[in-house]
């Protein structure tokens, strides 16, 4: 059946489809149920004390997961499969303007939530160096200023290196062909081009730090093409982007993105929401190569999956008879602070 219809028809159809009947608030009933009756059990509000909490309360696990999430982010944000097909004039000009920029340094607030929770289980500050030729360096700190990880995604040696000061561990991984192609997109322009490749909308004008900016927003409708090898670890369901561009300099001033994940091994089989805000962007036409030379301290040892399991837990695993992919944390570890 093919009908040529107008938008009014669509509006009417949607109105009918979403009409679930009139609702009316009964204040007396509500007060009786929620305010006056103190013994009422609110079954939908309850603490989430579960394996995920155990995992995320364990610093080694939490920090390691955050480091690998970083890799997933990098692969996602600079995915090599996008092409420019929706580029608007303004964004195309911005991309052109960024052609000569070799490196961007910026700060980022990155908060991790379990989906549905009010409070993030992890709040972090990030400093990121993105270089067209040399790759990306990311340092992620707790809000108390403690370095959680330093990650290098190196363009020339095609290698991913994560250093975890808390546990004095490091993790190295070569970037194979498919993943290495990502490096070729590790440019500020690459990020913009990706943004241009998805359908976006204008948010209008605003002021950020004294700059007059124009905003753009895009929602990824489909699951992102994360490399198959990583999708079971960190399945991204949706990313909402917002870019704010200075209308005079045509350079980005701020970028925000919200990532919703499905249940994956690195999400503790929970759905996560990750809110990020990149700000204080600085643009350079040259990059300091020394920055991109990883210096792994001598007392660091190589990170293995079994490092995620406490000694006590290792002893108990046999008795329990379960070992789901090396991610079991049976006992919360507390670090004794001096």
């Amino acid at each position: 059946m093919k009908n040529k219809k107008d938008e009014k028809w669509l509006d009417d159809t949607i109105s009918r489809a979403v009409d679930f009947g009139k609702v009316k608030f009964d204040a007396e009933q509500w007060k009786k149920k929620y305010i006056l009756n103190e013994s009422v059990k609110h079954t939908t509000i309850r603490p989430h004390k579960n394996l995920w909490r155990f995992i995320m309360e364990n610093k080694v696990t939490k920090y390691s997961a955050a480091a690998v999430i970083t890799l997933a982010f990098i692969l996602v944000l600079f995915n090599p499969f996008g092409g420019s097909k929706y580029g608007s004039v303004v964004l195309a000009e911005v991309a052109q303007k960024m052609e000569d920029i070799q490196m961007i340094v910026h700060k980022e607030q990155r908060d991790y939530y379990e989906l549905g929770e009010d409070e993030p289980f992890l709040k972090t500050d990030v400093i990121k160096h993105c270089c067209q030729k040399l790759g990306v360096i990311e340092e992620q700190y707790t809000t108390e200023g403690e370095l959680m990880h330093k990650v290098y995604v190196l363009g020339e040696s095609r290698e991913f290196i994560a250093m975890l000061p808390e546990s004095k561990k490091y993790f190295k991984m070569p970037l194979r062909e498919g993943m290495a192609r990502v490096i070729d997109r590790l440019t500020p322009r690459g990020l913009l081009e990706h943004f241009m490749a998805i359908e976006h909308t204008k948010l209008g004008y605003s002021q950020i730090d004294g700059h007059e900016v124009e905003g753009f927003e895009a929602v990824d409708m489909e699951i992102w093409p994360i490399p198959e090898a990583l999708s079971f670890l960190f399945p991204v369901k949706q990313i909402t982007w917002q870019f704010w561009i200075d209308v005079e300099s045509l350079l980005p001033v701020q970028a925000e993105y919200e990532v919703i994940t499905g249940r994956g091994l690195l999400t503790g089989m929970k759905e996560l929401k990750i809110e990020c805000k990149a700000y204080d962007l600085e643009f350079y036409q040259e990059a300091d190569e020394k920055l991109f030379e990883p210096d792994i301290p001598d007392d660091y040892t190589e990170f293995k999956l079994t490092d995620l399991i406490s000694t006590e837990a290792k002893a108990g695993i046999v008795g329990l008879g379960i070992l789901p992919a090396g991610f079991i944390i049976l006992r919360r570890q507390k670090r004794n602070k001096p």
Partner: protein
Amino acid sequence: MKTNDEINLVRAASKGNVDSFSRLCECYYPTITAIAYAHLSDRDMAEDAAQETFFVAFRDISKLKSFERFGNWLVVICRNISSDMARTRKRESIVRLEDCEIHSNEKVNQDNYDEVVRAVITKLPDKLREAIFLKFYNKLSYQEISNVLGISQEAVNGRLRRAKKLIVKKLCRADSVEVDL
């Protein structure tokens, strides 16, 4: 409700005045229920979520720093509660899109159309679905949606347009309709 009236009610409620809070609830109930319905696709659960939202809001209203953002704050609480409820129940969509697939040679009646559209809306991203419900169920203006969701009117417009485009795209895929947008 006028903004000043609302702010006065929120201020009174933050000092523990239950009646002021109840008036705010009356005002926001349809909106918050719609947001919850957008996440849950079940009227009873949506009403439970809305009432739970008001309970949490009443409990925590002293923490609200900006009285002007009361509506948006309620929406955030409602989203969280609805997501919680959605996770704890068995996932069962009202109508599975695959079950409603329409073949080009079949006669399609109005009820089928509505079911297909409902199924398509159920599959929209959360933010787009919320905008659709606020616009087409609550009949809110762009300004009102903007206030409730805490986004600009341009963003509201963008979300509604994207939602409609997606709906049309999926309806077209089911070969049931063509719409010029």
